């Protein structure tokens, strides 16, 4: 009944094709594995996306056009950053808590393919929230967007940098509870203490300076400037810092994913 054809091949004949195949298979694994959650995820993402935009309008009574734009684009950046820095490590932590981590990471797929599959899913799941935020912003505050081509590198770098750091954290921290706590802290820092949804001048001097070197502020600048016209200015220096962070994160992730305890 069983033929030798199913006995596993040793070396993939074409590494590129093998990587793609592995990525596709792992993506399928991730997608089917979270199937039961999709309805709830959709609802919560839309609520959070729209809620963020509406809510701050409630808290801050006089919202002029510029402030509303700032806020709405803040929601977009927030979603993108949170996908990488929070959702991805939480997924890894949950795998560890469920006990399925060992099985998933014993599968013969390149580590990068498996990791990217997780991030792809997280990013796709973030889309409804982003769309909801933009729709609500344009309906309630009459915010309109001026999307320019830099939106592609802005989104790509933000997602890549964030998820590389996030998955490295998820894998590096052995205790999943620690990962969960760290990501909650991360949410807090990003939402409350990063110049993502409010301008940097509101932060105390030392914190604003710190953010000149951390990636979040530059992620926000890149995304915001690609979605609006004249609200903020994205400098070449910011692009460079963002790219450097992405590169460093890639290196860090490569090391962590390959490491064995």
């Amino acid at each position, binding site marked *: 009944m069983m033929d*030798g054809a*199913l006995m596993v091949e040793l070396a993939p004949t074409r590494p590129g094709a093998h990587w793609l195949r592995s990525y596709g298979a792992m993506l*399928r694994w991730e997608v089917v594995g979270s199937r039961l959650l999709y309805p709830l995820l959709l609802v919560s993402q839309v609520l959070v996306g729209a809620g963020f935009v509406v809510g701050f309008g409630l808290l801050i009574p006089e919202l002029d056009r510029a402030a509303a734009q700032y806020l709405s684009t803040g929601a977009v950046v927030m979603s993108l950053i949170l996908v990488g820095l929070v959702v991805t490590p939480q997924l890894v932590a949950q795998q560890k808590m469920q006990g399925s981590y*060992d099985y998933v990471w014993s599968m013969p797929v390149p580590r990068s393919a498996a990791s990217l599959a997780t991030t792809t899913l997280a990013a796709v799941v973030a889309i409804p929230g982003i769309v909801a935020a933009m729709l609500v912003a344009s309906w309630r505050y009459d915010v309109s967007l001026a999307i320019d081509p830099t939106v592609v590198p802005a989104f790509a770098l933000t997602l890549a940098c964030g998820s590389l750091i996030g998955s490295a954290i998820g894998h590096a921290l052995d205790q999943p509870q620690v990962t969960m706590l760290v990501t909650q802290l991360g949410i807090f820092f990003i939402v409350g203490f990063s110049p993502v949804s409010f301008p940097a001048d509101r932060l105390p001097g030392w914190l604003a300076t710190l953010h000149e070197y951390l990636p979040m502020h530059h992620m926000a600048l890149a995304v915001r400037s690609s979605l609006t016209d004249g609200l903020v200015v994205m400098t070449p220096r910011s692009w460079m810092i963002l790219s450097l962070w992405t590169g460093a994160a890639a290196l860090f992730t490569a090391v962590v994913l390959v490491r064995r*305890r």
Partner: protein
Amino acid sequence: MTLTEARVETASAHSRWVFRVEELVKVYGSNSVNDGITLEVRPGEVYGLLGPNGAGKSTLVKQVMGLLKPTRGSITLGPHDLVDSPATARRLCSYLPQAQMPIDSFKVNEAVEIAGVIRGGKAPDVRRRSVALLKALHIEEWGEVYGARLSGGVRRLVGFAMATVCPGRIVFLDEPTNDVDPMRRRLLWEQVRRVADEGSAVFLVTHNVLEAENSVDRLAVIDGGHIVAEGTPSSVKAEFRGRMRLIVMMIPGTPDPVLPAFVRSSTRVANRLVVLINEPDVAASIVWAQRLTAQGLAEEYALGATSLEDAYIRLTGDTGQGTT
């Protein structure tokens, strides 16, 4: 190439794929979880690793699969160094971990097929093989059921199917029969044998001694990080050759009876008293057991050959009490 030629070639090719662990050491802090493990498994062989909880069995397997890094020692499969290249290890070895598979939102068919594809099989081959495997395990009726709705036993069998639909050169099974009902256990062992017959080596980790005895070709007993015995089930219990076991079911609540002189050793677990005797003393032991029954201290008794369990208990001191 004719079928015979293919078989001959496969056989000689397979003989290259010996799995070897040499002086494997894994240290956590001051604790030596694996302390110089050496063993060898050939293709087509079912090899068992027995030991109490915490003896280092799962740690050994995780080092092979590249989830942990050995402190010292080597692991090779055929010509490949698995410690050097965990990616090769993952490609050549299949793994069924101790924990249940995370297949809550997968239908059974899906889980097995996706697992096969991830392991590198081609979709139509995998599907064909998956259908046959589920049928052989008598779980095809659950094909379209979601993992969350399965009982622990069926879920374990699905996990087994996922690990063996596209088996590697060696298949690691960590406690495969946990939660599985007796009828399906037999089917699982049949499939384990079949996997071995088709050319893979099978490495079985278990603390269920009785099952291991009937299903493995060779085994090793591990305790406290060391291998304390190795060989075929018969050779491991060789010291008990010429011995028999008398099992006496005591009435609950009765104290241990006074043991006659011919008793070589005894173990009592709850109300089951197992006594080892030499063959010449069989008749005397039956008389003794009958007397216990007549005195109302025992319910029944049975005489049988020594089992691996006796050797295992002597080697490790693990009577299975206090463990699941």
